[in-house]
C-alpha cells in the first residue's frame, strides 16, 4: 500500500472532517481468512481466550464492570 489518501468530508453533526481513504488491498479474496488456524496448541488457545476474549475469560479484566467486581 502506497501513500494514504485523505479527503475532506462532512460528518453527521455537520462538521468538516478529514477522512482516510481505503487502506485495504484491491481485489477479491480467493481463500477464507482462517485466523483461528494460527492458534496451534492448547496453551495458545487458552491464552487467546484469556486475552482476546478477556470480557468473559480473564479473571482480572472486566472492562466497564471492573468497579462492580471489586465492590
Amino acid at each position, binding site marked *: 500500500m502506497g501513500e494514504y489518501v485523505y479527503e475532506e468530508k462532512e*460528518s453527521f453533526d455537520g462538521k468538516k472532517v478529514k477522512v482516510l481513504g481505503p487502506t485495504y488491498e484491491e481485489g477479491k479474496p480467493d481463500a477464507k481468512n482462517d485466523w483461528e488456524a494460527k492458534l496451534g496448541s492448547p496453551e495458545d488457545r487458552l491464552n487467546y481466550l484469556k486475552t482476546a476474549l478477556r470480557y*468473559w475469560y480473564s479473571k482480572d479484566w472486566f472492562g466497564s464492570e471492573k468497579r462492580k467486581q471489586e465492590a
Partner: protein
Amino acid sequence: MADEKGKEKIRSIDNAAITLIEKAQKENVSTVFFRADELKPCPIGVEESCCKICGMGPCRLPRPKKAGEEKDRAGVCGATIETIVARNFARKIAAGTASHSDHAREVAETFLKTAQDEAQGFAIKDEVKLLEVALDYGIETEGRESREIAIDVGKKALEQFGKQDGELVYIKKAPLKRQEIWRKLGVVPRGIDREVVEMMHRTHMGVDQDYKHLMLQATRTALADGWGGSMISTDLQDIMFGTPVPILGTFNTGVFKEDQVNIVVHGHEPFLPELLVTATHDPEMKALAEKVGAKGINLTGMCCSANEVLMRHGIPCAGNFLQQELALVTGAVELMTVDVQCQMQGLQDVSECYHTKLVTTSDRAKIEGAIHIEFHPENGLDTAKKILRMAIENYPNRRHAVYIPAETQDAVVGFSHETINYLLGGLFRASYKPLNDNIINGRIRGVAGVVGCNNVRTVHDSAHIAMVKELIKNDVIVLTTGCAAMACGKAGLLTPEAARLYAGSGLAEVCEAVGIPPVLHMGACVDNSRILIAATALVKEGGLGDDISDLPAAGAAPEWMSEKALAIGQYFVASGVYTVFGTTWPTLGSEKVTKHLFEEHEELYKGMWAYEPDPIKAAGMMIAHIDKKRKALGLDKARERVLYDMAMRRALD
C-alpha cells in the same frame, strides 16, 4: 399483474425475483405472490382481536370502526381484550422460542453423537470454541482430551432444556447490570422447555388473565431463546463446523448453472447441508454427474440453511424467503431439500410444474406429496450421497426451457463476534476498543441490528434495503442476519466497497481502514445470539455505559413475518434494545397491551418495541434513539476526532 386501479404492482426490488414472478405468471404457476393477491389478511386477525383457545368461542372482538364508539370488549368467558391480545402475542413468542430451541436440541444431540463418534461425517472442528464453551459451562479442561471435554459440553447443553430451576448457563455472559434487571423482575429462564410449557399453560383458557403478568412470562420465554436455545445452536454448530471467518460468497438466483446439476438446501439446520458439501467432492458423484451429461454439481442454499454453509464454505446463496418457489420456476433445480421452518407447502405444487424433486429430511416435518428421506447423524453421509445421487439422476429429466436470471452479487460474509474482535485488534490483542473509540469520537454514530424475514405484504427486500442504506448513510454500522442479510448481500451492501458508495464519511473511513463492509453478515437467525454477545463485548470494553441499554444502538426487523421474529424481538427488547418492526404489528387490537410493549417496557427493561411500516421513518426513529443514548453518555459534545489510520491499528498488533 395489475392491481384494481390497473397499475402494475411492484412486488420486489430484486430484478431476478421480478423476472421469475413474470415467468411463473406466464406459466400459470401459483406462488406466494399471487396467493397473497387472492387472500387478504383477516381484518380482525391482523390486530389479534380474536380468541379461539376454547370451544365456547371463537370470540371476535374487533376495535370499533369509529372513534368515540370504544367500549370494553370481552369474550364469552369474560377475558378482556387485553388478556386476549397478550395471550395471542405470548403464544407466538412461545412458538418462536420452541422453534429455535428444538433446532438447538437437535444440534446438542448431534453434537453429543459427534463427540461419541456416533455421527457419520461430523467432527469437532473448532477446538478454540470448544474450550470457550467448556469455560462457559464450567467444565474442567486441563489435561483432558477434546473428545472428553466435548462429551461433557454436549451433556451440559442438553441439560439446559430440561432444567427445572436455577438459571440458564449463558445468562451469566450478559452484562452484570442486565442480569440484575432480569433477576429483579423474575424473568431469568430456568430451563428452556419449562418456560415454553409454562407459557402455553398460562395462556390456556382461564389461567393467567393479567396482560402485564403474561408478558413477564413471555419475556422469560424469549430470553430462553436468545440467551438459551439460539446461543446453544450457534456455539455448538461453530464447534462442529467451524466459527465463521471472512469468506467470499455469491448471492441471488443467478448462481444456478444451466449445464450443471443444481441442488438447493433450504431450511435451517446445517447438518445435511454440511454433508452435502462433503459429498459433492466425492469422485464417484462427480463421475455420475459427468455420466448424465452435466458439467458438474452446483450446491446452493436458501434461507438460513444457505447462511450456514455460505459463511463456512462460501456455498452460493440462491435467494431469501420469498424466492424459494421462484428458484424452482427457473426450471434449473434438480432437487431441493427442506428440513424445518420457513419452507412453504406451496413448494410441492411448484416442484410438480417442473422436474424438481422436493425432499423433506427431518423426522419432524413432512410435506404431503414430497419425497421423504430422513436425515439421522448416524448415517448422515450415506443419506447425503443418496440425496445427491437422486439429484444427479434427475438432471436428464428437465422438461422446461431453463431460464436463469443474470443477477449475482459477490459479498464478504462470516463476521462472527470473534472475527470482528480479531479484525479490530489482531490475534492476542483482539478487542472491541477500536469500535468503542470510534463510537466515542463520533466517526461511528451507533450500531444497528437489522434482521428478520421477508413478508409478501410488503415489497420484497425493499424495506431492508431502504432502512440499511439510510442507517449507514448516517454513520450507523449495521449487523445483519437471516433473510435481511441476504437482501443486503444481493444489493451489494456486504462488500468493503459499499462503504465508499453508501456510508457516511465517518463510518466509511473506519470500514476502509479495517477493510470491512459497512454492513456485517453475522449469520443465520439463530446467530442473532452473536449480536447479543457483540453488544455485551461493547459494554464490557468500557466507555459506553455499563449495560446494553446504554449503548447507542437499536434493532429492527422491517419485513418480519414469523413467530420466531417476535421471540427474537422480545429478547432484544428485554436485553435493553430499542426494536422497531415494520410491515404489520400483532397487538394493535389492544391499546393497553401496545402501550405496555411500546412505552412501559422501557421502564422495566430500558428497551422497548416500536412499529413503523415506513423503513425510512423507522431508520429515523432508530437514529433518534441512538442520538438520545449518545447524549446520555455525553457523546454529543464536540470531541477531538483522532485520525484512525493503519499505523495506529498496527500498533495494536
